[in-house]
C-alpha cells in the first residue's frame, strides 16, 4: 500500500490527487492522507507530495469540465472538513465522478458518493451555524469576531458577510487555525494568517459595551416562561457553539 500525504490545504490536496492519479499504481493500491500523520501503519510506503500550481489548476479544471461545477463545490467544501479521511473520500468520489460525469452527485446509493455528500453536508451545516451564531464586538470602529470551528469555514463565511456588511470594517478570526478574514470598508476581503503576537493582542477583543448589555437584556426577556424548554434550545443551539456568543458570556 502506498500512502500519498500532503499538507492540509486545498491546493496541496489537489496536487496530491494529481500525483496519486498519475502514479498509475492502481486505485486499489493507494490511499491519500492529509498531514499530520498520526500512527504510521505497517507495510505502507508514505510519499509526501508538495504543492504544484499547475497540477492543482489541472485537477480543478478537470473536475469542473468533466464532472460539474456543483461537484467542484462539493469537493471544495469537503476538503474544508476536519475529518482525517477526507482526502481519500474525495479521491474515491473523483474516480466515480470521472466515470459517470455530472450525474454522479445524485448517486447517493454509492458509498463513495454518499461519503462525500455527508462531508459536504457537515461542513455546510457548520458554516451555517456560525453564520447564525458568530458575534462581533466593536473596537475602534472595527467589528471583530472570534470563532473556533471544527471545519475550516472561513472561506464560506467571508462572501456571506461581505454581502451583509459591505460598508463596515470587520474581521473574523479562526482561533484554532490562526487565520482571519479581514474586510476593510467598501473593499474586497482578504484572508491572512496571524502570528502568535497578533493573536494575543486580539484575544482580549471580546469587550462589553452598552449594546452587548442591551442584547443580553433583550435575550433574557424574549423567552416565554410558560413555554420554557431548555432541551429544545440545546438542540437548536448546541452548547459547543455558545463559547463566543455575547448572550452567554
Amino acid at each position, binding site marked *: 500500500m502506498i500512502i500519498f500525504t500532503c499538507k492540509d490545504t486545498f491546493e496541496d490536496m489537489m496536487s496530491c490527487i494529481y500525483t496519486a492519479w498519475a502514479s498509475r499504481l492502481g486505485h486499489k493500491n493507494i490511499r491519500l492522507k492529509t498531514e499530520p500523520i498520526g500512527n504510521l501503519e505497517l507495510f505502507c510506503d508514505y510519499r509526501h507530495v508538495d504543492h504544484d500550481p499547475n497540477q492543482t489548476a489541472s485537477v480543478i479544471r478537470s473536475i469542473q469540465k468533466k464532472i460539474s461545477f456543483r461537484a467542484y463545490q462539493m469537493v471544495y467544501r469537503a476538503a474544508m472538513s476536519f475529518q482525517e479521511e477526507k482526502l481519500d473520500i474525495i479521491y474515491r468520489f473523483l474516480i466515480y465522478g470521472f466515470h459517470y460525469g455530472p450525474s454522479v452527485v445524485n448517486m447517493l446509493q454509492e458509498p463513495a458518493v454518499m461519503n462525500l455528500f455527508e462531508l459536504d453536508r457537515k461542513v455546510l451545516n457548520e458554516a451555517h451555524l456560525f453564520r447564525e451564531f458568530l458575534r462581533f464586538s466593536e473596537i475602534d470602529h472595527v467589528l471583530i469576531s472570534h470563532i473556533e470551528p471544527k471545519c475550516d469555514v472561513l472561506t464560506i463565511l467571508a462572501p456571506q458577510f461581505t454581502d451583509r456588511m459591505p460598508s463596515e470594517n470587520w474581521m473574523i478570526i479562526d482561533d484554532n487555525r490562526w487565520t482571519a478574514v479581514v474586510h476593510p470598508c467598501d473593499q474586497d476581503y482578504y484572508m491572512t494568517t496571524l502570528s502568535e503576537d497578533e493573536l494575543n493582542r486580539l484575544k482580549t477583543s471580546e469587550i462589553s459595551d452598552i449594546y452587548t448589555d442591551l442584547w443580553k*437584556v*433583550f435575550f433574557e426577556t424574549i423567552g416565554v416562561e410558560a*413555554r420554557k424548554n431548555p432541551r429544545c434550545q440545546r438542540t437548536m443551539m448546541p452548547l459547543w457553539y455558545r463559547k463566543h456568543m455575547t448572550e452567554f458570556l
Partner: protein
Amino acid sequence: METFSPSLSLQEKLTILADAAKYDVACTSSGADRRGEKGKLGNGVAAGICHSFASDGRCVSLLKILQSNECIYDCKYCLNRSSNDRVRTTFTPEEVCRLVIEFYRRNYIEGLFLSSGVVKSPSYTMELMCRTLSMLRNQYHFNGYIHVKAIPGAPEELLETLGYLADRVSINLELPTPEGLKDLAPHKTQKTILKPMEQIRSGIADHRLSIGKDPMMERFGGNRNLKHTIFDDVRSGRIEEHRQLASNSFLPPAKDKPAPFVPAGQSTQMIVGATAENDLQLLSVTQQLYQKFDLKRVFFSAYVPLNEDSRLPSLDTAPPLLREHRLYQADWLLRFYGFHAEELLSTDRPNFNIMLDPKCDWALRHLELFPVEINRAGYAELLRVPGIGTKSAYRIVKSRRQRSLTFENLKKIGVVLKRAKYFITCNGKMMFHIPIEENFITRQLIGEDYKKSWEIDHPQTYEQLSLFDDQNFSSSPSAEDTCKSLSGQI
C-alpha cells in the same frame, strides 16, 4: 391607573417593550432575497437566518419589540390591554433605529419586527411606525429585513407607505371565527382585519404583475411536481378577477425596477386554545387564508394565560403546546406536501390525534394506498409516506435513476425508517415481515412517538418512575417476533 414615566432608560424601555412583544409568534426572516449594497447595511436571505434561540427554544431572528405598549383597546387575552395596570412607554424612532443598526452590525439579529399597542388612534400609531421605518431605511440606510404589524383601522395610504418600507406586513387574525373575536376582542371585527389584508394582497399582486410575474406569490419549488395543491385551486382565473390595477402599473417600463411592495408577503397569527374552536375550523381558515389572501405563512400561538377573565381559560391552564405542534405539522402538509385540510380532518373527527402526527394519522386511514414501492412511486406518492420529507423524496427520485435503492440506502438518504418501514417496499420487499393492518401499525407508531409527544406538552416536568412499561417504550418487534406471533408461539 396608567403610570407614565418619561425618564425610563433605554434598557428599561427595551425590557418593557420586548417583554410585551414576546407573545407574538412570527420571528422569521425568510422570503426576501436581496443583495447587499455598498453604503447600506444588510441584505435579505430567502431562507431566513436564526441568530439565537431563546430559553423557550423559539428562534430569535428579529429584534421583536413594540413601538409602544400604550393601548386604547381592551382585548381580553392581551397583556397590554387598557384595563391592565402596567408601566407604559414608547420608543422614539431614533431609539429603534439605533438598536436595530447596532444589533445588526454585531450579528445579533437579521432585522426588525415592529408591532405596537394602539396609541391614541390606529392612524396615530401607524404614522409613528411609518416614521420609524422610513428613518431606518432612508437615514440609517438599513437594507435588512423588516417585519411590521399593521394596525387594523388605519388609513389605506399609511398601509401602502408601510408596504413599500417593510419586507413583510402582517395583520393578526387572532381568532378564526367572528364570534370568538367579538367575545374576546370587542374593539376588533373580522371585517376591519380582512380589509387591510385584502389591500396588501392586491398591492402585492399589482407589483408582481408590473414586473411581469404571476400575481400569486412563489411557493415551495417542489410543489410544481404535485398535481393538486391548495394553491392550484385558485391560480386559474385570478388575473381576470383582479380588477383594481394601480394606475402606475402600466406606465412604460422605467429605468429602475418599481419599488418592491411587501416582497416577503404577508402573514397572520391565530390563538389556539383561548376559545372553543376545533382544529378543523382553524385549519380550514388557514387554508382559506392561503387561497384567498395569498398569505405566505399562518402562525399559531398556544394560548398563554396572562389575564384573569370569565371568558378566558383559568390562569393555571398549561399552554396547549402539543395541539399547536400538530397544527404546525398540518400547516406544513398543506404548503409543502399537497394535502388539503379536508383530507386531514373531517366534521366527524374535527380534532387531531394527540398520539400521532397528522401524516401518520392520514396514512393509517388510507392503508389501501400502501405499501408504496420506493423504486417506482412518483414524487407526489413518496411525499405522502410518513417518514419521507421533501428532501428525502427529492433525493430518492434523483438517485434511483442510476440504480435501485435498498433500505440501507434510504436510511443514509434521510428517510425516517422508524415510521416509513410500515408503508414502503424496496424492490417488492418490505423491511420486515409486517402485516399491513391498522391496529397493529397504530400500536407500533404510538409506542414509538408517545415519548416525544409527551415531552412537547410537558417541556419542564418529570414523570414518576414506574416498574411497568406504561408508555410502551419497548422496541419494535424483530422479524422473528412477527413470525412467532403469526405462528402462535407468543
